[in-house]
């Protein structure tokens, strides 16, 4: 008797599974963990769409390139601006169908394929209890004594590391090589990814870490720790954005469109700051969660379009590598 009930249950469950349409969303690995925005997005979107949102995580671009047209993705979320050129070249993506003018980014966004859903800026984070005189500008950072130790990420393996070399390029242009030579003795080490760097910083191994302007927000709002600050430089900060794109060959085009609309909705945008520890892409500052608008943000924002970045990238990385290999 019991066995038949279980069998019936399984049959019903598979039946239900077959009727509910499935939207497969590829996301970066951190995204769907319980500390990422994934779980909230899944619950909230499933209420709207009467569908089953299924995450599939991993290295986004290598995976798309490997899978090619056999990809199971309907939507890809988390592509950063440094890989959009490569992603575009796969011709797997179609237009996002949303109104770019609803975006509230500090830069002008005209791309109709990749839709930003959050942003931030590169910044050096320090602990104000251990650092008496934080640098007030990028120039001041270069003039700091060499025993101030900074930890950064490798531009060849990490998006924030790449943003740093582009940041130096945007501020100093031709003088980048000298700038890196001045920074080199202060650089404690270079890590593969952001989390290893940040761990060194929170362990007290380094005085400053290359991170994001929004990092202090995590410590403020999640830990009530007000000692971590971002050094804001008048020369400007490099802009970083994460986007969402729709796969052209999707078998769920309507669900995918619904998802794109959901990304631009107030509910989604208002959730981004505390769920992803970054700034919402389409929400006026006055509507940010409490306390967020007091977060010190740069007045000047620097950004290379994907074509400019692609042209500069190789040389900027080589300059970095040469200076730090001395």
């Amino acid at each position, binding site marked *: 008797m019991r066995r038949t009930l279980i069998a019936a249950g399984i049959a019903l469950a598979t039946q239900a599974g077959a009727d509910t349409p499935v939207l497969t969303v590829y996301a970066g*690995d*951190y995204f*769907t*963990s*319980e*500390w*990422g925005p*994934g779980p909230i997005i899944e619950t909230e979107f499933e209420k709207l769409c009467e569908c089953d949102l299924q*995450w*599939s*995580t*991993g*290295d986004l*671009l*290598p*995976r798309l*390139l*490997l*899978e090619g047209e*056999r990809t*199971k993705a309907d939507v890809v979320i988390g592509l950063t601006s440094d890989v959009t050129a*490569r992603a575009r070249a796969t011709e797997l993506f179609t237009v996002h169908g949303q109104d770019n003018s609803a975006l509230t980014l500090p830069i002008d966004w005209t791309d109709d394929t990749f839709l930003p859903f959050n942003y931030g800026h590169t910044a050096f984070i320090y602990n104000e209890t251990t650092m008496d005189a934080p640098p007030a500008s990028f120039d001041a950072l270069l003039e700091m004594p060499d025993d101030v*130790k900074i930890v950064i990420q*490798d531009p*060849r*393996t990490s998006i924030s590391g790449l943003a740093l070399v582009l940041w130096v390029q945007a501020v100093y242009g031709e003088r980048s090589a000298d700038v890196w030579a001045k920074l*080199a003795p202060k*650089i*404690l*080490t*270079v*890590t*593969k*990814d*952001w*989390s*290893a760097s*940040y*761990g*060194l910083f*929170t*362990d*007290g*191994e*380094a005085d400053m870490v290359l991170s994001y302007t929004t990092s202090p927000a*995590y*410590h403020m709002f*999640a830990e009530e720790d007000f000692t971590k600050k971002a050094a804001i430089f008048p020369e400007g900060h490099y802009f970083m954005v994460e986007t969402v794109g729709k796969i052209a060959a999707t078998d769920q085009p309507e669900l995918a469109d619904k998802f794109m609309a959901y990304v631009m909705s107030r509910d989604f945008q208002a959730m981004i700051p505390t769920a992803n*520890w970054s700034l919402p892409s389409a929400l006026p500052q006055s509507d940010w969660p409490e306390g967020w608008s007091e977060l010190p943000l740069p007045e000047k924002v620097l950004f290379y379009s994907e074509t400019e970045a692609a042209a500069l990238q190789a040389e900027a990385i*080589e300059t*970095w*590598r040469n200076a*730090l*290999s001395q």
Partner: protein
Amino acid sequence: MAQRAQPISGSAGAVAGSFVIAAVLAAFVGIALRAEPGAGLGPAEWQAVRFTVVQAALSALISVLLAVPLARALARRQMPGRRMLITLLGAPFILPVIVAVLGLLAIFGRNGWVNLALDALGLPTVSIYGLHGVVLAHVFFNLPLATRLLLQGWQSIPAERFRLAAQLDLPPWMVFRSLEMPMLLRILPGAAALIFVICLTSFAVALTLGGGPRATTIELAIYQAFRFDFDLAKAAWLSVVQLVLAGGAAGIALWMIPQIPLTGGLDRPVRRWDAKGGGQRVLDVLAILLGSAFLLLPLVSVALSGLAGLEAVPASVWRSAGVSLWVAGLSVCVLLILALPLAGWIATRARGSVEAIGLLGLSASPLMIGTGWFILINPIADPVSLSLPVTAVVNALMALPFALRILVPVLRETLDSQGRLCLTLGMQGWAAWVWVLLPRARPQIGFAAGLTGALSVGDLGVIALFADPDRTTLPLQMYRLMGAYQTEAAAGAALILLSMALAIFWLCDKGGRYSAHA
């Protein structure tokens, strides 16, 4: 030397060996299918090759040299807790890299215990970052392995020889020269080659402790080629360079070393009359104290910060611990299926040249194997749903050379001493395995299984490339915690990972020894 008749045939071993070669070759084929002709290797890549070879050679040399006094002291001193100490000293080898780096920094970092002590004494502080930091970390990882291999060597010297040396009243240095030196010459090159190959494929250690891009290793360059440039041709070239280097090292070590036959003793407990002198005693105590401090203090720091973070560990970490356990179990099964016949085959041959096959899996980049197989599996099935079995197989391949090093000597010795008897009794093939070889090799099988399980639990491996969110392994979950500002919980997860790796190793090792002591 002519091959003499053996009770076991090499055919099962040849099948296992072919599987290993096919697994690695298939990955190459997969990548070759998709690779577009690229720019080839530039100066940055060649610099990476140079750095990789230099650090791997230094690490291997220093590891085996330091292992000699430590293993010698452990081999000839009887003290309470000696077995426990030997097991614990093995821990760094099975420690996940990221955990180990945290532990090393707590001791040798800018605010580490060493620098605090130096500062308190008014001495200048030291920096761990640079080539010496990379070598330090590699010695930390591999000194345990070298020590274990040498310890086995010491145990292979029959007790009767030391008795004879004592009767002849040989001074300690003569005992060393006539009994221990030949054994060292036989074991050291192989151990050094193995460690060289392990350090060739080093990745995260080199970058974090190397201090900058001059410390780029080949494995890191492969990762960059895959992930950032998506230049499969470059990645494949780099993998070939890595394979050639590792294969060269293995070839030198395995072909050039003569086999020195050891006649078996009567399994009498070893007594060392030569070690009774005061100077010898001081030397041994010093070696054990320094070795233990170097290997255990980083573990203590990991345990301390882990205990503080254990409360913050969420339920998902325990779930992923279960997944990791499953992967480790599968890895051990795959390993035993491959390693036993392969080791048997090698043991029937006069020279160890076939053992080079075992090094293939270790010297091929796991990233390359994972990507190659992904390309091959993709047209037929969903690679993501196979990510856990693939991880288990790759982990088993990486543990294969260690298992062979552990299994081959005992199988060879058993075949030498019991082979003729088996043939006389008509015990061949399966019967010889079940009644003679497996029981004799049981401690070594336990050791190899424990090592594989522990390595597999701690390895991030290929799973990071394409993980199913519901089937996360513990190392991956730990990385996620670190990536989400949850450093405390990550420290807790690190402690769980460390405990699991040690427990698996201890259980298998113990299981293997159970009958030996019964």
